[in-house]
């Protein structure tokens, strides 16, 4: 790790100004991934703009019933927040499925979204990786890739996004609020992260200098039955092999609203739009769920050694849907 300048920002304006003033700067939130990557030499910032103490650490209920979560709210606090537990339980559960108690105490909402892939080739400077070093090649595509993507990958990158929280946000139709040199804007959570295409070095739609200020949980999904289920190699403290976040409203015997996002299978939380379309208006049944997931996963292109993710994502998501449907009906 090369040495770097350190600036503690007191206001959002100070943060974006400091960032603009220092080419090669990075924003520092909880640091749980950034410091890790700096130690590995993957991230080499010239300066850190510490945004962890910005006044973005509150969770506020908005008049329309949505919830605005400040970017520096810690993951553990967000998971424990009564309104989140009541209104968007899938988010609480997703947060609690990630990392460890220690890491959740340090990690922030904004930082969680911006964490980077755990692909071993990305983390190893001695190996090719188009995400870390564009044009160097992809070690994983023909290498060890049991944990890698089955959906939406490209010849340039087969990495997955590691966040659990982001998967729940995608399913819940959350929005990400950004501020930056060109002003404020809002991006839907399910398209905040990108597919790799030929620019795998870009994880998200965030523009240079932009800072996440908040995540908004919309009123539209508040109080709906929602759930998150994650499958991993050990019972806790491991990244997902696959996960599913689902929000489901059944009305009059048909699916009135459904949001499905899959984790651990793509370069971003995979919003299962085709499955959602197939289900909306249909009677909820296991067969309908299976059919919807088959439609969605027909786009899957497993690599040599990760074909298991397709049936895993299918059975996992069908299971979550079935349970939620039973709860809706009950």
């Amino acid at each position: 790790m090369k040495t770097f300048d350190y600036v503690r920002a007191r206001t959002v304006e100070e943060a974006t100004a400091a960032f603009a003033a220092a080419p090669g700067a990075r924003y520092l939130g909880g640091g749980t991934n950034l410091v890790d990557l700096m130690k590995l030499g993957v991230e080499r910032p010239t300066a850190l703009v510490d945004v962890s103490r910005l006044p973005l650490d509150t969770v506020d209920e908005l008049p329309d019933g949505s919830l605005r979560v400040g970017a520096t709210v810690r993951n553990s606090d967000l998971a424990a927040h009564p309104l989140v537990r009541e209104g968007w339980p899938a988010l609480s559960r997703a947060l609690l499925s990630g990392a460890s108690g220690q890491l959740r105490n340090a990690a922030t909402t904004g930082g969680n979204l911006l964490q980077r892939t755990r692909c071993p080739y990305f983390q190893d400077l001695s190996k090719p990786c188009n995400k870390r070093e564009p044009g160097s090649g992809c070690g994983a595509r023909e290498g060890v890739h049991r944990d890698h993507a089955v959906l939406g990958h490209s010849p340039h990158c087969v990495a997955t996004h590691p966040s659990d929280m982001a998967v729940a946000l995608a399913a819940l139709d959350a929005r990400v609020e950004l501020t930056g040199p060109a002003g404020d804007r809002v991006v839907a959570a399910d398209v905040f992260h990108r597919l790799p295409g030929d620019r795998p070095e870009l994880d998200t739609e965030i523009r240079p200098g932009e800072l996440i200020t908040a995540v908004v949980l919309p009123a539209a999904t508040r109080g709906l039955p929602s759930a998150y289920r994650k499958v991993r190699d050990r019972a806790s403290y491991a990244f997902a092999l696959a996960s599913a976040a689902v929000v489901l409203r059944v009305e009059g015997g048909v699916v009135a609203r459904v949001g499905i996002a899959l984790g651990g299978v793509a370069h971003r939380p995979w919003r299962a739009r085709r499955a959602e379309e197939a289900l909306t208006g249909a009677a909820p049944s296991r067969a309908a769920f299976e059919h919807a997931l088959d439609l969605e996963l027909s786009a899957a292109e497993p690599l040599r050694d990760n074909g298991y993710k397709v049936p895993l994502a299918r059975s996992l998501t069908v299971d979550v849907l079935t349970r939620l449907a039973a709860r809706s009906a009950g």
Partner: protein
Amino acid sequence: MPDAPAALGTPVVRREGLDKVTGRARYAVEHRLPGLAHAWPVPARVACGRVERVDASAALAVPGVLAVLTHENAPRLAEPDDPTLAVLQDDRVPHRGWVVALVVAETPEAAREGAGAVDVAYLPLDHDVLLTPDRPDAYVPEKANGGHPGLREHGDPDGAYASSPVRVDTAYRVPPLHNHPMEPHASTARWTDGRLEAYCSSQGTTTVRQTLAAMFEVPEESVTVRAEHVGGGFGSKGTPRPDVVLAAMAALHTGRPVALALPRRDLPALVGHRATTLHRVRLGAGEDGRIRSLVHEVTTYSSRVKEFVEQAAVPGRTMYTAPHSRTAHRVARLDVPTPSWMRAPGETPGMYALESAMDELAEALGMDPVELRVVNDCDVEPDTGKPFSSRHLVECLREGARRFGWEGRDPRPGRRRAGQVLTGTGVASATYPVLVSPSTATARALPDGTFLVRVNATDIGTGARTVLGQVAADALGAPGDRVRIEIGDSDLPAAPLAGGSSGTASWGWAVHEACVRLARRLAVYQGSLPHEGLEEHADTTGLADAGSDHARHAFGAHFAEVGVDTVTGEVRVNRLLGVYAAGRILNPRTARSQFVGGMVMGLGMALTEGSTLDPAFGDFAERDLAAYHVPVNADVPSVEAHWIEEDDPHLNPTGGKGIGEIGVVGTAAAVGSAFHHATGVRMRELPLTPDRVLEALSEQGAAHHRA
């Protein structure tokens, strides 16, 4: 002599326990020597080849960097017995991750930055890290690890197999496994006027001292190596590792004390690992279940650096009566990191395969798996023909079955279902040899009525300090709190390493001997003790290493209950229970911790742990603790360890067989068999992760569908 209640056999609390829970216990790089510098290694980026050139200029320009050691400027060392220690001595790169440079700096941050700035050019050669069962270059080694013959054959195993009415012919794979003690391999070294002093995270500093003295060509008296507290080893710190050699070289080169903790990511390549083992097991039995032919053939790899052969076919030489048998190892030399000892080397993967095959045999016979093991019990070791000094395998199986609630088990698989979770139970035997080595020790009586016992034992978490205190107290007839124990320093009386479950037997024998002599002398001593006290010395050479007419092994039985989620492929162990017959249990508190700890490691082997040699790059893909899945607390449910007291006169004065390793031995097989009982599916490759499980379950589903 004062009368004291017998200490041995009582659950004495760890002597160093308070230091450990208060943070006072200091480990290898926690000694703030004046002028201390920090080192960081540079691992090779190719799997085979040579270092063409090292450009250290950028690294040396990093503020705080003191030196960059390479094969061109590092101190020349005498050739070590263990070639993995010949670091920075030539330009050869035998595997990826081999150390090609070492940066020394004022701070750890500067050392790490410097290491990143060292520019190494390589002349790479093609590499090959792929192990297959039919590699033509695999050969039968003369000896496997532990001095066991590479091949043993009795009778006509192929003929007897072919003519057996019930046969099982099956294959298993155990992936590479990493020891990953929580304290990485770490050393602090300092040279003062030609004397080398080191703190080293090691399982035995007597050997570290001998090795350093030989390599640096100084008298052994000029070297002191300390290991007061050691953050685990599990075999990987049994022999000196490159960290201590590098630290000593760096200290010599810079004239400063140097601390080096190997980065976690570098451990898999540098400190040994359990190599992949590919097993083929054939068991031929009569209708009565008695084994007629046992064939266990193991294929494994070693590195180009040295031959280390995991002795995984060895358990078949001890476990069951088999008039015809072949137990054989084949090894291919690949461009891989050098494998080495990991908890119960040989027995752990070997018993996974053999005991899994026993479960398959029980199924083929329609026989209860406990009963199958009982009918194949023996009182003479099949391979050597020697009688067992004691063998209570059957008692362990019976006691375990009783405690576990085995009776009435429906042997049919796939019968216990709750929702999407299938539950099953399994059993496996365990064995581990009784090993013991010569040791020395002194015992001194002091005028204030206390005693000082000194022996260069190492407490890697086993409770050695505590148990040796109990041994001494009993032999002296003194209360434990009057006995002080000094261990973990090579200036103390020489002693063997903490390994092979032999530490307590080896050190305890010498301690016992010294204390008995001292007690005898004190019994006839007249008057007050001299100021420096009275001391007796013991050396068990000739005793501890005398051969035995008996085959000496500990035995045990493992029982497991697992739940298998048929939707997600997740396997969870609900219960583990082990019963062991391991001689006399000297301290139930620390012994239980060791048994349970072994079982937890076995659980990891069964469910979560496994590493992958990356064919393209030649190193392990899982090099950190996020990717290599050591079990976490949530993976570990109820774990019970019990034992059967054995009074075996053929062991050593303390009567223990060693308990550090047997807990791991049969656990994976018990879990694997429980998985089969739950699902009806045989998984023959570890670990049982969701990807493999789902695939196996879907194949079964497809097969049912076709049928």
